């Protein structure tokens, strides 16, 4: 039945699409499986690492050092990296399905979740992900028209992304100068006139999604005072029950840190980071550009674990010239693949891709954010990928049967031939290493860890020196 699939003579051929954390951990789990496997890791950009390169804040160098683990995986025998190859552009889903025994989609989630309120299109209103991409040198994101001559910014959302944004906006540039932050961002931040940053969340401190570590870091920014209204920290019975639930691992430490912030007096002349709980944006007011945010006080209603924020009291007006929305990411459909509109993810069970009728799409898998939605930290993807690869390995008999019907798929040779026929070619991992090295050299000129290329053609040129 197995027809030798996964043996040294007939290795399993798998394409992993997307070289972020989920893609690397999927590749690693395949290489560790004991089955002979050829893993082709496809990435739309010339460089790997996904959100570790373009999402993790530049001042979190220790977190970014996980790329050393990914680089080791990339250089293992059995794996080949194909940079500059985008699904739906260089190669279609249908073509990939024909070229490989199995395809694991690890493309992450790229879209952002709008607030859906009046005034969201006004100049001065930005998506968090656009700002993150801007300071992380993501190609195409450098022209963000962010006006840092404004004195008051509102960040909507209370997760770690919101805190990252706040911390970068409030960091003295000397704190960022040695990182790999984009030079255009560093220059803009050096002239920032921001004096107040308001972090706004619909629900209470118990439901906040940030971690104690990120919350604590806010308090370390010189010249900024973190303010919390003690009234926001008075918990009702349902919130007390939620905070006491062992599943709420961060609630107690977050509360303790928030209480410490609430108790400290504001030093004279300090700039202000203010955390507002039980507050939702209602309207964004212009007319030509954002001038103020109308905020609706909220209260929590319902039993523990199922509390909902409902309006409570008259709206308040907060003058502000910048608003950054950070209320979650939302996936967009991938060409040729089913789509779960509700969560913006791929419909799947245990990592097996499902058709709209609920049947399994044989040979197709998913891991990472595109599988489970935009939540979790880097390490969450390792457990997620392990589950997906366990499903894939359990399906070996079906994958062998598919080979029996259609023959051995062409794998990486077939991919190279297809790209060649289109006048394109992939960049290997050595190219990615050359790009990174060139970026470190660029950065060294100004004392930075790296100055990442913004332009894809510059990356390609650095990858293939003449």
């Amino acid at each position, binding site marked *: 039945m197995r027809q030798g699939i996964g043996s040294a003579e007939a290795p399993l051929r798998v394409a992993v699409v997307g070289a972020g*954390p989920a893609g690397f*951990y999927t590749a690693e789990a395949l290489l*560790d499986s004991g089955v002979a496997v050829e893993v082709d890791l496809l990435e739309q950009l010339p460089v790997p690492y996904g959100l570790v390169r373009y999402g993790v804040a530049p001042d979190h160098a*220790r*977190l970014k*050092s*996980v790329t050393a*683990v990914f680089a080791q995986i990339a250089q293992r025998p059995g794996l080949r990296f194909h940079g500059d190859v985008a699904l739906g552009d260089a190669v279609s889903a249908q073509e990939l399905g024909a070229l490989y025994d199995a395809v694991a989609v690890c493309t992450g989630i790229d879209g952002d979740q709008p607030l859906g309120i009046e005034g969201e299109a006004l100049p001065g209103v930005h998506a968090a992900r656009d700002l993150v991409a801007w300071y992380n040198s993501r190609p195409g994101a450098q022209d963000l028209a962010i006006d840092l001559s404004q004195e008051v910014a509102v960040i909507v959302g209370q997760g770690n992304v919101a805190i990252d944004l706040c911390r970068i906006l409030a960091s003295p540039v000397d704190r960022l100068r040695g990182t790999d932050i984009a030079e255009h961002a560093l220059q803009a931040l050096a002239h920032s006139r921001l004096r107040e940053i308001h972090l706004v969340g619909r629900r209470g401190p118990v439901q906040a999604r940030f*971690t*104690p*570590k990120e919350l*604590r870091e806010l308090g370390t920014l010189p010249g900024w005072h973190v303010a919390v209204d003690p009234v926001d920290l008075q918990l009702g019975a349902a919130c007390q029950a939620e905070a006491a639930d*062992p599943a709420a*691992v*961060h609630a107690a*430490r977050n509360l303790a840190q928030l209480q410490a912030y609430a108790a400290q007096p504001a030093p004279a002349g300090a700039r202000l980071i203010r955390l507002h709980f039980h507050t939702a944006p209602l309207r964004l007011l212009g007319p030509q550009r954002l001038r103020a945010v109308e905020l609706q006080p909220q209260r929590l209603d319902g039993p523990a674990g199922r509390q909902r924020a409902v309006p409570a009291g008259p709206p308040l007006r907060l003058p502000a010239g910048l608003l950054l929305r950070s209320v979650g990411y939302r996936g967009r459909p991938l060409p040729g693949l089913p789509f779960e509109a509700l969560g913006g993810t791929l419909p799947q069970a245990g990592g097996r891709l499902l058709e709209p009728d609920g049947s399994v799409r044989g040979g197709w898998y998913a891991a990472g954010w595109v599988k489970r939605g935009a939540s*979790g*930290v*880097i*390490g*969450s*993807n*390792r*457990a997620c990928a*392990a589950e997906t690869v366990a499903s894939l390995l359990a399906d070996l008999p079906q994958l062998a049967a598919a080979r029996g019907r259609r023959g051995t798929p062409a794998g990486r040779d077939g991919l190279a031939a297809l790209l060649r026929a289109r006048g394109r070619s992939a960049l290997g991992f050595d190219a990615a290493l050359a790009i990174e090295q060139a970026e470190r050299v660029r950065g060294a000129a100004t004392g930075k860890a790296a100055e990442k290329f913004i332009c894809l053609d510059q990356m390609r040129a650095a990858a293939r020196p003449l």
Partner: protein
Amino acid sequence: MPHVVTDNCRGCRYTDCVASCPVACFHANEVRVYIDPALCIDCGACIPACPVQAIVEEFDLAPEQQHWIRINAEAAQRYPTLRNRLAPLDGAAALRQALGY
């Protein structure tokens, strides 16, 4: 600051933490696991993964738990790296219940 594995792990060794560690910084013996502080990148994925809340960031350690910093660092040198999940130890479920989780 690095994360450390404290008392609650002993006798449970659920190893859900190990499955979610992005840098393979866990080491294990027969009764529990430890974190190598030189490798931990502070991502925090292991904290919610642990069913008995044995893992704490160094900064959050209570005064009476400070000795776990040294124990983790030393044990990580002594015991082998554990990269993937193991079955919990016999009695882990009872211990977890006794710990109130």
